[in-house]
């Protein structure tokens, strides 16, 4: 079996995995980081979005071995101790979730949106950028609100 080495949320990890192991399986089953969810398993829904070398990817459509030598960030890597990341806090403050299943992917995608588009986001931009993340509860309204508020909060972080 191939050996894979990567950094997950800042920590180096090494493991022997079957080549067919998906990155999301590796995160959830080997590392027990179950915050990254599997929704559709066909790269449509975005529940499995993580960052690989700072870019959003669907972890259900990437092999763990493809992330060899990469830096992976999951939802578990965002908070500092008990202090939520401003984007997580924004989802809480704006009630940007109902069942919560899509939320980890939404938050990771939101951070990617901020990285590429800055802290002042209009509604149309956020809606277009969220096209790869599906939520079946909220109707997106409060998610869009949360992303915009989170983006702003990240900009004003001391």
């Amino acid at each position, binding site marked *: 079996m*191939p050996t894979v080495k990567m950094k997950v949320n800042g920590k180096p990890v090494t493991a022997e995995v*079957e*080549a*067919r192991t*998906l990155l999301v399986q590796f995160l959830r089953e080997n590392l027990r980081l179950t915050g990254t969810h599997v929704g559709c*398993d*066909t*790269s*449509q829904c*975005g529940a499995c*979005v993580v960052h690989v070398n700072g*870019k*959003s*990817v*669907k972890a259900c*459509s*990437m*092999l763990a*071995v*493809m992330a*060899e030598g990469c830096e992976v960030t999951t939802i578990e890597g965002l908070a500092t101790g008990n202090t939520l990341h401003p984007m997580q806090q924004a989802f809480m403050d704006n009630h940007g979730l109902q069942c919560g299943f899509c939320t980890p992917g939404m938050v990771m*995608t939101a951070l*990617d*949106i901020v990285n*590429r588009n800055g802290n002042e986001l209009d509604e149309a931009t956020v809606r277009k*950028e969220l*096209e*790869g*993340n599906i939520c079946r509860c909220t109707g997106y309204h409060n998610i869009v609100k949360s992303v915009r508020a989170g983006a702003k909060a990240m900009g004003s972080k001391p």
Partner: protein
Amino acid sequence: MYDFNYHKPGSVDDAIKALRKASDGKFVAGGMTMLPTMKHRLASPSDVIDLGGIKELLGITVKGDTITIGAMTTHAAVAASKDVQRLLPALAKLAGNIGDPAVRNRGTIGGSIANNDPAADYPAAVIALGATINTSKGEIDGDEFFTGMFETALAEDELIISVSFTKPKAAAYMKFENPASRYAIVGVFLAKTNDGVRIGITGATPCAHRGMRLEEALNKEFSTAAVDKVIMPVDKMNADIHASAEYRAHLVKVMTQRAVEACK
């Protein structure tokens, strides 16, 4: 998916060697189509050769009016490239509307073209712009590259190195997209070139192709009215849950008209 032997070569030569050695090997680029296909067990290669470690397949270079894009360049990188935006804004826009942001961070131009999905965006641009596909064996003309549904002129052990486009006088890509997948229900790429108007159509039929009737009409008179008069054959059009053959034939003309407007 079934398990396989995984290879990550560092050069084109090593990649081809690995493929030749395998009993049923497959190259994988970004994996955005390949991995879902393997999950569905529609493909079960004995060996997967990951092209992600080959530096010579990366990057965008400009020489005069020609822009060459490495096969492993992601859609996100093409969309964000200042060179592509300057020389071929229609291609940058096309790349920026494939799938969704996470898909664009993994999916590549080489993978898209080699796969030749009937609803993929890039084939329309390759055809309309008369691009050249640079491969490990030589050059393939964009007009001759797409040979059938999911089929190309590539040999089994041939690898796309890069794709070269020449700057047109004007170009536009208009896509009527599936709102869920963002695949083209119909996509029309129109380019005004030194050889006249060229049109690449994707999504409408089992394989992307040139819109000869539309080209003929537009070369006589470059107007939306000229497109109106063209009779689109319905019998070759795809028909599925998303759009009937008649509707697709209609959309080809509407998308062409929008492209004409954008190129005026």
